[in-house]
């Protein structure tokens, strides 16, 4: 999947966030806070992971079943799509 916006992942004081940079600042006057699992998913999206890869990652990392992992991945990706980030 394609990352359409200029954002940088930062982890500060135990919090994870996507910070808009460049022209993307015009579109978002703020940051996107992320959970630990959101951070993991984003790092792998940056590496080119697709939906199924992300599902496998969540299953391994959090020892959850396939359906739960897929639902979580879909929810996360929908959120990113809603903001036009991917």
């Amino acid at each position, binding site marked *: 999947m394609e990352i359409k916006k200029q954002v*940088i992942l*930062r982890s*500060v*004081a*135990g*919090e994870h*966030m996507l*910070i808009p*940079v*460049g*022209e993307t*600042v*015009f579109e978002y*006057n*703020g*940051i996107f*806070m992320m959970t630990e699992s959101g951070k993991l998913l984003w790092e792998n999206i940056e590496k080119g992971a697709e939906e199924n890869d992300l599902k496998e990652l969540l299953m391994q990392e959090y020892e959850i079943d396939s359906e739960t992992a897929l639902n979580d991945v879909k929810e996360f990706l929908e959120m990113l799509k809603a903001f036009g980030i991917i």
Partner: protein
Amino acid sequence: MDVEKLINRAVVNTEPMFSAYLHSRGNAAGVPVSATFELTARCNFNCKMCYVHLQDSALCKSQEKSAQWWIDLGKKAIEQGVVFLLITGGEPLLREDFPEIYTELSKLGFIISINTNGYLITDKIVELFKKNPPTRLNISLYGASNKTYENVTGVPAFSRVVENVKNLKKMGIDIRFNGSFTSLNAEDSEAILNISRELNTHVKGTQYMFPQVLVGGKPGENPCRLSPEEAARKRVEWLKLIYTPEEFEKRLKAMVDGVDAFRLSCDEECGEGKVRCRAGKSSAWINYRGEMCFCGVAGHPFSIDEYGFDGAWKKVKEFSASIRTPAKCENCKYRNICCVCAAACYTETGNFSTVPEYVCRMTENIAQLMKNEVERLGIGNGN
């Protein structure tokens, strides 16, 4: 639809929740979530009330750090956890290498704000901001006419600044006007607010001016600031202007509740106080000489060349934690509504542990004026 109410809401500046949250996390973890880079102390204006006013421009320039130094510092700041970066001066756009510094810093992952007087928005700067817009430009608006500008800054710059603001707004840049009200421009405060509404900017008004001890001024002195009584009057006037009647009434009630809450909670005499704000807890200031301070107006610097960013931050944290402010302030019934801070104590009196009488008088007058409003509106006991 109550358009006036919407407009009023739009101009009142409040900190985003995520900023307050991250600073609270930074305070707890000792992480510098925000930093200020004071690129220069030089300015193309000559404002008599400014805390970096009256410095030798050539000497200041010779002491400034290079563009590469600031870019490297930005990378270290990212490693240390800085999210919010304020670029300031003097006038930062006066540096010929500002585009180089800003371009590199804006790639690193900060949320960047810039303090500027808005005069030097050249075509080159406009192009720069098109590619890398700051999250916010804070533009000091010194008056509502060229005449007031000339009185305050020495330059009849009002028309040019307003034109620049219009262009920046067209580009989509978020702008906040900072109004610093002194004896030279306090009568323009309502007009400044109206300009802000017309141009759809945020606005922040400040009636308290710090003494200029950083540039050799005497503690407690600022040549053209308002008397504490007049500053209080202008403060309350400002609050009435920026809020709707309903919001102003809420603030009045909050103030009365704040004073009462303190009275009720204060069974025992409090000891000395500590730094109340984020200075040296989750916020650092790096001056144009490359020294880190806990606060921009109260000095006590640590050289970054000597200690490094992380070493200087440790020193700044230790220093901030060591500061003790007056016990009298901690026990004052107006503690919850007073703007006193460690920097105000230091710049008003020359040390952190003496009560700043100017601030006391200003707060007492604000309290009295607000009490008058409470009585006028019949919304509380007004005690």
